[in-house]
């Protein structure tokens, strides 16, 4: 799932790194609190990063003669906590990108979003939900499966958007040449059919072992969370939003359905926009206002950035509420 360089446009890469910055900040704050309680968390971060590296290196046999490897995002989240897992996986990805040539340097932000944020958090949320409903293992299995597939879906979308975002005047794509209609199904089938199950098996087996041998070594949810990280997240995001201005191409996610259709036609990929795009997501409603209001374009960027912040915050807020209530 490691996206290599030159598949994503610099604008996408920049946007995604900007989006990652506040997440990393929050993770740092969260993990520092965790370190206060268990000081071995500090070396554990590094160790977990190398563990993740080894997991991704370990080829598992799959029926049919080929092999696949697990990512271990969900597993790490359950073992050392989602925020620590986020940091550890980030370090793994950085190592792979800079020293082992696995995954791109510019695409680092995208890879981090997919594998160090989406996968552990989605997986962990499912696991917690399962725990709440007294089906811990089921929750974990679902978490591992859904986690990796969500990550794959997002990776597919990131890749598939490239022909729309960056192309020459004649419509030839500059980066990833496959549109959404190719990239998303390709990513998803591979993961739905194979990688997802490998991930599930791997996660469950290791979890089962640890649970049996040393249940106390699993991550224990802290009793109370403080609110400062959310403020930091907000400030970080708001401060970083002007970065979007630097992006020369249309930034990620800022198009409307007509443009979308126009581009798809240009590309000879599809003669009409995917129906889901037109009717399902309502980009029109979300993103077409800022120009109409006669505001300068930069203002529009900032507004939409803030909107994104808010949506993001609400999402995370929901997650946090859930983990809080479970504890009482």
């Amino acid at each position, binding site marked *: 799932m490691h996206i290599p360089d030159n598949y994503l446009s610099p604008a996408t890469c920049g946007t995604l790194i900007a989006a990652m910055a506040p997440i990393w900040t929050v993770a740092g704050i969260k993990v520092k609190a965790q370190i206060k309680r268990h000081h071995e968390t500090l070396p554990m971060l590094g160790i977990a990063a190398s563990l993740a590296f080894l997991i991704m290196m370990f080829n598992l046999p799959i029926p049919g003669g080929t092999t696949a490897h697990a990512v271990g995002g969900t597993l790490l989240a359950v073992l050392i906590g989602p925020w620590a897992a986020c940091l550890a996986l980030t370090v793994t990805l950085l190592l792979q990108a800079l020293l082992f040539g696995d995954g791109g340097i510019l695409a680092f932000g995208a890879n981090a979003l997919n594998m160090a944020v989406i996968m552990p958090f989605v997986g962990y949320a499912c696991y917690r939900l399962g725990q709440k409903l007294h089906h811990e293992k089921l929750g974990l299995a679902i978490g591992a499966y859904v986690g990796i597939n969500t990550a794959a879906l997002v990776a597919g979308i990131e890749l598939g958007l490239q022909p729309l975002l960056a192309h020459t005047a004649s419509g030839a794509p500059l980066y990833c040449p496959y549109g959404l209609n190719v990239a998303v199904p390709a990513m998803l089938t591979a993961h739905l059919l194979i990688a997802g199950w490998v991930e599930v098996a791997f996660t469950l087996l290791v979890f089962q*072992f640890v649970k*049996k*041998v*040393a249940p106390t070594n699993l991550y224990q949810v802290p009793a109370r969370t403080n609110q400062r990280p959310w403020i930091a997240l907000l400030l970080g995001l708001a401060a970083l939003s002007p970065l979007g201005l630097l992006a020369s191409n249309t930034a990620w996610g800022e198009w409307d359905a007509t443009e979308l259709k126009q581009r798809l036609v240009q590309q000879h990929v599809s003669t009409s926009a995917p129906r889901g795009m037109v009717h399902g997501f309502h980009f029109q409603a979300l993103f077409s206002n800022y120009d109409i209001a006669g505001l300068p374009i930069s203002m529009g960027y900032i507004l939409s950035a803030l909107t994104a912040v808010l949506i993001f915050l609400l999402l995370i807020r929901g997650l946090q509420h859930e983990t809080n209530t479970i504890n009482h």
Partner: protein
Amino acid sequence: MLLLKLVNICYDYPNTCGLDQLSLDIHAGEFVCLMGPNGSGKSTLLRILSGLASPTTGDYQFDGQAITATYLADAQRRQQLHQRIGMVFQNTDVQLFNTSVAEEIAFGPRQLGLASAVIEQRVTDCLELTDCQDLRDRIPYQLSGGEKKRVALASVLALNPEVLLLDEPLNGLTIAAQQQMLTLLQRLQASGKTIIMASHNYQQVQAVAERFIIFNSTHQIDADLARADLNQQPDRQAQLMTL
């Protein structure tokens, strides 16, 4: 019967030498002790004998069959070799990976497809032989250093290998336990097993080992002596007392 034959073995680690021009014959039923300074290549030799590492140059034959990297590439042949040669590692930590000591010992026999009563019997016997009865339901990775050593031996014994390779099996054991282990090894030898162990403890080992292979610090064999010969060489014995 000639069981293990090494001819001009060299083994090179990426940046150091492990073994240098080593030739050696070991017959079935021998009790051999490898001795030598730290870093002289004892563990390396045991790794080669077990088929874990292939010599850089030179030949290794086990029971008349040349054990080469290509020979070992076949999983089935490798498994057959491993069944005949068991090994206890110097760092026993890496050797224990199951969820309980009983599981750990049953691991090997279970693969052989034995009946569960037979497996149960083997587990009980092995625990008794190594005096680990009270560790039966403990988790291997939570044992103390000496306990791990004994469990590791038990888990290898359960496979009933013809050749036992032991890398400093006495380390970390009490003297009483050392003697017990050596007695056990002697009994195993009496029942026809070949035993090759590395040790720094000549004093304990001299009573049981029948042949001493002495390495020097340049990774070569310095001397290869039967116990009877050794008894006539007091200066050699004095040297062994320091290794």
